[in-house]
């Protein structure tokens, strides 16, 4: 209670810095910290600690702080209320106890204190070790190790001439051959179909118009061209087309000049 005359910032929730974490009343860091300190004053093993005595000390402490008009952090007050409840529960006859039992709650508190105590001790032992820069020192001016990486490139004559060959092949002027494909143009088909239609007035199958000894490639071209020619002649009113069903042979015959069939 070293700074009773100045207002103390007690806010359990507002934790901005290490300083704010410190509870200014004698420098405890939170209610568990205060409890641990009080427990230590009992000078017994934390496993043997009297929780009831501890609770009394804590409540007594909070009361004194209140009497000195110290502002207490909310979490200290919450802990005080909880401990007061724990105390009353511990004093009640066993059969009226609820679940969890006050013994259980007390044990939990004791276990927490043991753990905090253990860690605090461990921290102290850790800090007391021979620390680099305080107890032991590293070499003041090490020369330092440096590894300079050097890349050695590897290749071989085959890779070299192959690369050159590919450059040449890639950039050499290229000659493209366009295949001369056998086709029957629409014009020649028209001419051919017209002239063949001129011979007779009978129905003829379109396939019969095709050149008889043509290669398979030319036959396909001729078939397509002749079909288009037949359509064209029909459209011009010079011929008529007939097909009995889908994919049946397509038949064509000449119309008498201008006269519909």
């Amino acid at each position, binding site marked *: 209670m070293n700074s009773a005359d100045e207002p103390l910032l007690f806010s*359990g*929730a507002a*934790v*901005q*810095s*290490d300083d*704010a*974490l410190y509870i200014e009343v004698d420098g405890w*860091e*939170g*209610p*568990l*910290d205060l409890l641990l300190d009080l427990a230590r004053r009992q000078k017994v093993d934390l496993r043997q600690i009297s929780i009831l005595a501890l609770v009394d000390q804590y409540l007594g402490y909070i009361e004194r702080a209140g009497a000195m008009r110290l502002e207490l952090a909310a*979490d200290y007050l919450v802990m005080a209320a909880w401990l007061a409840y724990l105390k009353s529960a511990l004093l009640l006859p066993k059969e009226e106890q609820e679940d969890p039992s006050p013994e*259980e709650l007390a*044990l*939990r508190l004791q*276990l*927490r204190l*043991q*753990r*905090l105590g*253990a*860690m*605090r*001790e*461990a*921290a*102290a*032992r*850790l*800090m007391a*070790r*021979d*620390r*680099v*820069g*305080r*107890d*032991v*020192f*590293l*070499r003041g001016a*090490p*020369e*330092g*190790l440096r*590894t300079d990486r050097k890349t050695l490139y590897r290749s071989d004559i085959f890779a070299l001439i192959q690369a050159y060959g590919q450059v040449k092949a890639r950039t050499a002027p290229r000659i493209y051959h366009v295949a001369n494909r056998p086709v029957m143009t629409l014009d020649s088909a028209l001419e051919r179909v017209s002239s063949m239609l001129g011979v007779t007035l009978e129905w003829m199958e379109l396939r019969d118009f095709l050149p008889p000894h043509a290669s398979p490639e030319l036959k396909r071209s001729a078939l397509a061209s002749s079909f288009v020619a037949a359509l064209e002649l029909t459209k011009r009113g010079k011929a008529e087309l007939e097909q009995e069903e889908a994919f049946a042979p397509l038949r064509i015959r000449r119309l008498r000049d201008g006269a519909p069939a």
Partner: protein
Amino acid sequence: MSEDTAPGEDAITRALEATLFAAEDPMTPEQLSAHLGGMAMGDVREGLAALADHYATRGVHLVERGGRWHFETASDLAHLLRREKEQVRRLSRAATEVLAIIAYHEPVSRAEIESIRGVQTSAGTLDVLLEAGWIRLAGRREVPGRPVIYATTPAFLDHFGLASRRDLPGIDELRAAGLLDPVDEAMNAAMHFDPDEPEAEDAD
């Protein structure tokens, strides 16, 4: 060490000695081997052991910290050297405690740290430890919220002169006493009537 294998005349130990003296950071045997042109790992380990032995009584010691080796001054000479060389940062009590909790429990989440300390941990506290290079983020705990977990670093072992975490003062006793177990686990163990674990008391 016997005089007939004096490491001063031994090319391997001389090379290791020179390298570790010159190194700016502690080195693993693997790094030493690589630096020394692929020196056989067996030779590196033997050489390190011989060197550590040779220096054991001298003013400078060769020590292993977290698998990495470095020379440092003998700790009994601290009083001679400390004078102008107080380079160690002073840690706040909170930071000291948080560091101890992380070291003894790692990996550990902030919530777990707080449940042991009973107070919130300011971000600054963890920052100080992260900045010192003594703790690192060690991933996330696969529980709801996936909290970040923290663990110590090789630099932590270096600084506190620990060969490994097993050298943490009193860690075996703390573990044996169950003081590194969470409170809930300890409750189950202590309260022999846990309905879910009828065998609990046998497990003690």
